[in-house]
């Protein structure tokens, strides 16, 4: 790589000032906390306003990032035609020169310095971060719009918006971070908000405990974050200082160091493991996923924003961001079976199975989320970086949409119950729009062509297979089928069949609902809501809503609730096309703009102006002697690139050369088929199990017993039902799922709770036995000894002159004798 040419990178105001995206909501939060209550809309307008502003800037930044990327390609951008054909060829082939690595635009200030090291605070914008910035700003905005109506009249309305805004700010700050410390900052702020929002209705102990559990579980993972950061810092610091004129906290430096081949294996493996533990906690991966379902105790908007679409993907984002570390640490390059992939795989299946036996609609979605996060991890763990990141993007839309639909249902349809079996059913007639959105998102989630999920999830599965992880490939497919299954079940229970319970307009006292079923969080007990409720007049819209008022049955929700749902449904439909690999490279916007280019960059090119403004990049041209083959030859072309061998001297790689699978029609069909099968089975099951189970059924089974005695023919007639119900359902679905659920509740959950309980026990024991008895005892004991020895000596003070005299003379005599013996030789 000798000959080099110069490429110009453009920049722009939005890229330069992207830090505003995170700052504005933070300020917004402060304003809401301080003055929110006095404002006409109690602070919600601030939240919406700030997030709107952030969204605008994020959009601008996104556009300018695309320009920046294009600007690097010069005239070759025109020759886009070629790509249509030679899509999968290494870019070297096109126009004969490599596409350069696009440097992130960074803008940092010295935040703190310690013993000469300076740590920055600011923004570092590259494809991944700009994508997520936009996503987070967008979703947050929609969810807040949704909340306007959803939580109106809540006693802590203002606090709710404050926390939501703070969360957005935290997430944005983390996403735009250019150093680990800032990542930790955002990371922890999110944790705090999660705690506050899950426990939003803390009057109920269940919610408070759920909040505690969430924070605590995530915090356990955070140990990994701290340790990992420490390891990375001290590992990368020297390299960073020597070559990149920065320090070991800098993400770019960490990436470069990881790929530089200077890192000792031990260090990097430890670092990767530690960091991934943090991600397990945050992204609710097995075995730390148990907090996520409980987190549904929070209001629905919270679940939809934090616990499905944005916060929980922070873990995934972190892995994607410092991907080189994992790439090297888990040896993904050479198809090593990585920790990440395994965890991802397990999570997919475990949680998908669990989703089958949930009656709480939000819990179904929660387990579904866990399972989808599993897909992302699986992708990252197997080198399918691009699809995984893309899945973050699409999943956010449809999963958030699903949650909002659930919220809408409970808000207007099921009288604040989330219990599908008790209070729902047949709602499609009453809530057509919600139903439509739900169906669209469900199709997207299950990966049905042409909805968003299809393009991302199938790409993941495809690439997993392509990178040689056959088993995990099948796991992925299986997961897809399960997804189809449980989503169908949920859909059926909610929208089809006969209206039950609240959906049928029944009024049961919410208190006994709480009594018999603790999952029914989300609704607030009467006493409180009333106590909380400042203005009795808009009861109907308050979250606890119709409590104590006559109810006009299920109905469609208001505009403020429907608008976000519709928008999200739209994106759930179309967002997939932003990286529709099978349609050709011209559709691969993510591949072009989001995925960093695996090209080495000369140190001096970086140091010259420092990362940031438009720079003159030295682009190493690739020797023409390279292969010109197709297909797998592509991989060979990469096998000498970044992450597959140490970079040239004085150059640094920031991203490994990941392989992209060619979409094969067969594979697509296969996965579609699997999904279809899943649907088929599920629908059949639902129809048989739920629909046909009318009073006739019972009688028939009785008759079938009689039939066994004689009327074989009749008996055979219902043999299918029998088979379905007794054999398939009881025999297959239930045991497995139940077993999984049992393990989940008893073993894993038990472990988590056990840790807490054990800690407390240990505390008590140490305090009682060691602290009070041993340590403190020693102290008080010494005093006791002193005083007692005094007591022992008191008899000497007998008060008798003769004794005194004896003592006096005795001492003198003894002293004299001893000293005579000592001194007189």
């Amino acid at each position, binding site marked *: 790589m000798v000959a080099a040419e110069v490429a110009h990178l453009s920049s722009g105001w939005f890229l330069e000032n992207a830090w505003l995206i995170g700052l504005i909501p933070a300020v917004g939060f402060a304003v809401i906390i301080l003055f929110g209550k006095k404002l006409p809309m109690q602070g919600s307008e601030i939240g919406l306003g700030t997030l709107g502003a952030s969204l605008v800037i994020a959009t601008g930044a996104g556009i300018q990032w695309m320009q920046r990327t294009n600007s690097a390609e010069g005239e070759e951008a025109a020759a886009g035609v070629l790509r249509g054909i030679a899509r999968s060829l290494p870019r070297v082939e096109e126009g004969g020169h490599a596409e350069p690595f696009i440097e992130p635009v960074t803008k940092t200030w010295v935040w703190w310095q310690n013993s000469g090291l300076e740590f920055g605070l600011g923004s570092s914008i590259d494809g991944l971060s700009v994508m997520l910035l936009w996503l987070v700003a967008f979703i947050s905005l929609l969810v807040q719009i949704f909340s306007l109506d959803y939580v109106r009249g809540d006693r802590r309305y203002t606090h709710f918006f404050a926390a939501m805004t703070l969360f957005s700010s935290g997430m944005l700050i983390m996403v735009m971070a250019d150093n680990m410390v800032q990542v930790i900052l955002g990371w922890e702020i999110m944790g705090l908000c999660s705690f506050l929002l899950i426990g939003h209705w803390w009057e109920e102990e269940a919610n408070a405990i759920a909040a505690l559990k969430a924070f605590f579980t995530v915090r356990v993972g955070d140990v990994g974050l701290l340790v990992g950061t420490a390891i990375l810092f001290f590992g990368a610091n020297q390299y960073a200082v020597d070559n990149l004129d920065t320090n070991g906290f800098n993400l770019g430096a960490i990436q470069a160091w990881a790929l530089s081949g200077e890192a000792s294996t031990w260090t990097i493996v430890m670092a990767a493991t530690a960091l991934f533990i943090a991600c397990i906690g945050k992204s609710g991966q097995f075995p730390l996923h148990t907090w996520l379902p409980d987190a549904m105790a929070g209001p629905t908007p919270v679940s939809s924003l934090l616990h499905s679409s944005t916060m929980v993907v922070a873990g995934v984002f972190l892995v994607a961001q410092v991907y080189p570390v994992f790439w090297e640490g888990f040896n993904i390059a050479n198809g090593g079976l990585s920790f990440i992939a395994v965890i991802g795989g397990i999570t997919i299946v475990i949680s998908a199975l669990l989703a089958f036996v949930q009656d709480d609609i939000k819990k179904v979605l929660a387990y579904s989320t866990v399972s989808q996060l599993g897909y992302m991890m699986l992708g990252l763990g197997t080198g399918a970086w691009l699809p995984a990141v893309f899945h973050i993007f699409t999943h956010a839309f449809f999963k958030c949409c699903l949650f909002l639909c659930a919220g809408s249902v409970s808000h207007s349809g099921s009288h604040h119950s989330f219990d599908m079996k008790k209070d729902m059913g047949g709602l499609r007639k009453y809530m057509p729009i919600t139903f439509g959105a739900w169906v669209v998102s469900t199709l997207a989630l299950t990966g049905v062509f042409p909805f968003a999920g299809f393009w991302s999830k199938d790409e993941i599965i495809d690439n997993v297979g392509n990178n040689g992880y056959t088993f995990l490939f099948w796991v992925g497919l299986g997961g897809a089928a399960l997804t189809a299954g449980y989503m169908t079940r949920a859909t059926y229970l909610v929208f089809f069949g006969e209206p039950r319970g609240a959906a049928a307009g029944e009024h049961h006292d919410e208190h006994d609902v709480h009594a018999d079923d603790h999952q029914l969080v989300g609704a607030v007990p009467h006493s409180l809501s009333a106590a909380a409720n400042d203005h009795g007049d808009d009861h109907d819209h308050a979250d606890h809503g119709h409590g104590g008022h006559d109810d006009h049955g299920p109905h469609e929700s208001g505009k403020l609730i429907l608008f976000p749902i519709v928008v999200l449904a739209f994106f759930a439909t179309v967002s997939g096309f932003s990286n529709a690999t099978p349609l050709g490279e011209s559709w691969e916007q993510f591949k072009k703009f989001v995925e960093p280019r695996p090209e080495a960059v000369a140190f001096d090119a970086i140091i010259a102006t420092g990362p940031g403004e438009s720079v003159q990049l030295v682009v190493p041209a690739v020797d023409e002697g390279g292969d010109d083959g197709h297909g797998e030859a592509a991989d060979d072309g990469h096998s000498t690139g970044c992450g597959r061998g140490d970079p040239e001297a004085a150059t640094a790689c920031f991203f490994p050369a990941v392989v992209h699978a060619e979409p094969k029609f067969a594979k697509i069909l296969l996965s579609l088929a699997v999904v279809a099968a899943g649907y088929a089975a599920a629908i059949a099951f639902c129809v048989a199990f739920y629909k046909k189970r009318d009073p006739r059924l019972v009688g028939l089974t009785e008759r079938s017993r009689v039939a066994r005695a004689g009327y074989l023919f009749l008996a055979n007639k219902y043999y299918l039902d029998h088979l379905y119900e007794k054999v398939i359902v009881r025999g297959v679905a239930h045991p497995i799922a139940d077993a999984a659920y049992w393990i989940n509740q008893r073993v894993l959950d038990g472990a988590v709770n056990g840790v807490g309980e054990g800690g407390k026990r240990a505390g008590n024991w140490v305090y009682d036995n060691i602290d009070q008895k041993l340590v403190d005892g020693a102290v008080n004991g010494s*005093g006791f000894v*002193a*005083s007692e*020895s*005094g*007591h022992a*000596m*008191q008899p*000497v*003070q007998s*008060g008798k*002159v003769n*004794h*005194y*005299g004896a*003592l*006096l*003379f005795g*001492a*003198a005599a003894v*002293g*004299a004798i001893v*000293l*005579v013996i*000592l*001194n*007189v030789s």
Partner: protein
Amino acid sequence: MFAFLVAQASDWITPVIDWHAVAPELVLVAGINIVLLIDLNISDAKKWVLATLTGFVMLGALLPVVTLAVIGDDSRSLFDGRYVIDEYALILKAFFLLVAYVVILMSQTELEEGGYYQGEFYVLMLCSVLGMVMMSSARDLISIFVALELLSIPAYMLAAWRKRDVKSNEAGVKYYLLGVFASGVMLYGMSFLFGATNSTLLTDIGAALTDGDLNGLEVVGVVFVICGFAFKISAVPFHTWAPDTYEGAPTPVTAFLSVASKAAGFVALVSIIFLAFPNASDVYEPLIWTLAALTMTVGNVLALRQTNIVRMLAYSSVSQGGFILMPLAFAGNSNAGGSALNAVVVYLLVYGFMNLGAFAIVIAVSRKTRSGEISSFGGLFGYAPGLAVAMTVFFASLAGIPPLGGWFAKFNAFRAVLQAETNPAYVLAAIAAVNTVVSAAYYMRVLRSVWMDDAPDGDTSPVVTPAPIVAALGITVIGTLVVGVYPNAITRFAELKDLTGAIVP
């Protein structure tokens, strides 16, 4: 034989007497006679005059001390070195006179209200002080012995001053018998020293005694002499008389004994060790090391048990004696010798202030409570904050807490010890460190009841403190504070040259 004695006696030269040098003693002698005569013919109603007069005698005796200090920088030696007035002697003379003055301030009301003999009291007090003043100049076994008895015998009687009170009698008798017994033992040792060195002059003895070739006679002599003074300074195990006597004797007398006569004992010990035994360090260093360690430890742990404040103060003064003794254990050490002397002197001065103060408080309070129990001090802070604060000052100072005088005294003692840089020194320092904490325990317990408890019988009528006691308190408080905050005030005295004629080891 007789002829040779006559021959000895024949060449007698009348010694030249430096009258200025002995002026303090003469003033005291005159004072004794005047007070005695006036007492003979004065009505009981006017006895208070005697107190004032005695006070003036003390101050009058202080005058020549000051002039001597101002004029004479070089030391004056009388009776060929048997009676020396040097800086060291002057400081201590002044100290004794001042202490005696304060004691008299304290005792005045006590005597008037107690209905004791007053005239005799003051006369005896003066005699005792005269003994002390002489002691600080005495440089000869005989003069030391005479001074010792002169200060002791009146003290025996003062201890028993409350004639009708059995405890007081007991105090006096115990003090007397043990005192005389101890001085008997000491004399026996002195006789050995005289025999072995053929001189009663300390410096000659010092010249004769040298480590390595000591014979049994000398060792026994050294040990007995030290033991004799160990009795005076109530060092364990020669302390047994102290608690009983202190408790039984009238409180002002206790104060006098615990400060003045103890100081006198130290004075004698210092001059003997520095002048007579500088080269017998193999004998006295282990002895004093042991005495010091025992004294501070035993005194403290026994004090922990006491419920009577006077008795507690008795034990506390025992343990304080241990701290004063500590540096002497390294008097022979080439590094520490000088600062050991300073440490002892400084400690004596500070100790005088704070201990007298403590007793003054006890007197002032017990005038109201009529009880010596520690519990009777409960709630003092409530109804007599002034006294409580003063008491806090003294006790905290005794515990050695900065910025009160006591800390500097203790600090100096530690400093002298550690300066020796020997292992015994470090061990002793460690023992002392632990002891400071133990002592703090009982001092703080008293302060605790003063500040944190309620008055035992809910009687919170204010305490009337007579003017003389207020004056005494004033002097002692100021002394304690000044020394603590600005130690230079006394360290400039403590910058002593080695005692005149001392043989530097």
